[in-house]
């Protein structure tokens, strides 16, 4: 794994590449690589696959980690390498940290697929808080957050409550719907 913070990557969701994009074939090949924990969304839709580019005469595929300790990251890197190798594409896989991954990069399709899979997608925009907002966030006093109730992926009710900050993986919180009474995972804004 190498890190290269010199080249600026796109800062936002990445739409599916159209025919005519210089690396269209590689992008569409990698559409089949999904998040091992959430097999319904592709790495591009999750915002993990950031770029396919030429670098020093060879092809480079750039991915960015989600949570620092996410155990699925090395699996994703291996899956990308395997998909490339299987198709006979010679490319390096590079991990780059900046700009930091955010749930704001998840595409609309990814959010719809998460909901269909039973995971409530991140509701609030995920800016990192600063100064007084940090204190407010920690104290659960952020007005912007209070206005955005998490809706149940089963029945659509916004009458839900947090059971635990941390769920089955680092990126999710555990919620419960007070109407249909089903528990569900909530993908936290990051």
């Amino acid at each position, binding site marked *: 794994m190498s890190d290269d913070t010199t080249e600026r990557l796109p800062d936002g969701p990445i739409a599916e590449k159209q025919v005519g994009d210089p690396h269209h074939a590689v992008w569409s090949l990698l559409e089949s690589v999904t998040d091992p924990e959430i097999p319904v969304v592709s790495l591009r839709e999750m915002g993990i696959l950031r770029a396919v580019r030429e670098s020093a005469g060879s092809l480079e595929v750039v991915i960015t980690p989600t949570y620092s300790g996410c155990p699925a990251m090395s699996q994703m890197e291996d899956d990308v390498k395997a998909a490339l190798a299987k198709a006979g594409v010679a490319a390096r896989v590079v991990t780059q940290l900046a700009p930091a991954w955010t749930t704001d990069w998840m595409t609309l399709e990814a959010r719809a697929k998460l909901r269909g899979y039973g995971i409530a997608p991140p509701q609030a925009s995920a800016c*990192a808080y600063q100064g007084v907002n940090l204190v407010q966030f920690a104290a659960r006093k952020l007005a912007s957050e209070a206005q955005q109730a998490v809706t149940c992926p089963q029945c659509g009710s916004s009458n839900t409550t947090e059971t635990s*900050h941390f769920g089955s993986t680092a990126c999710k919180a555990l919620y419960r719907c007070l109407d249909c009474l089903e528990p569900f995972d909530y993908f936290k804004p990051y």
Partner: protein
Amino acid sequence: MAAHADYVLHLADNAVILGQRNAQWCGHGPVLEEDLALANNSLDLIGQARLLYQHVAALRHDGRTTEDLLAYFRDVPDFKNYTLLELPHSTALAPTASGNRDYAVTMARNFLYSALMVLLWDALKASKDLQLAAIAAKSLKETQYHLRHSRDWLLRLGDGTDESHARMQAAVDHLMPYTQEFWTSSAMETAAAAAGVGVDTRNLQTVWNTLVDDALAQATLQRPAAGGFVPTGKLGVHSEHLGFVLAEMQCLARAHPEAVW
């Protein structure tokens, strides 16, 4: 350059030691949700430590240093973590059994430390070391949730039953003096701050105090006067507890060096 790498090593050691400590709750959490929460908290911290250790290896650029070497093949005096983070989950000075684990101590420590780290990571986003700035931007997002989680428990236990209040107050009384180490200067921190790589934590102290006082007041807890012995873990002079943490953390790697699976 040595101070620069040492400063990043200090941040990495903080993360790995607290990550290792909190992982001791794995399978022993007071409730299932908290067992998961602490495992996730450790995963974040160990992930941050890996990124930081990899960066130290890149900074040293000696063809020898690796993240595994830094985590598994250094001894107590080489570690630069705050003493606070190596203490057992207990207010007893010499806890004798794992049954002495007290969740109030775990949560009070996570609160005091993550209250510092949200401020420090936020400031380090502007570091001239761009890789450190990138790690800080990621770590801040994770630490925000650690702070919120531990603050919730500070309130729940502090403003809970007589028993939970007494134990949380004892935990805060026990740990607060160790936070003095946050604000003492060291050669590596001074040099890193002067180079624009690090941050002088004393500039964060006022906001930290506000954060801590606000939470303690809401939790109906008293803030003890910080005084007495000032710990020196970041200088490599540790309590007797770190050796036991390292023994547990390093024994497998040392028994089977370079093993892979």
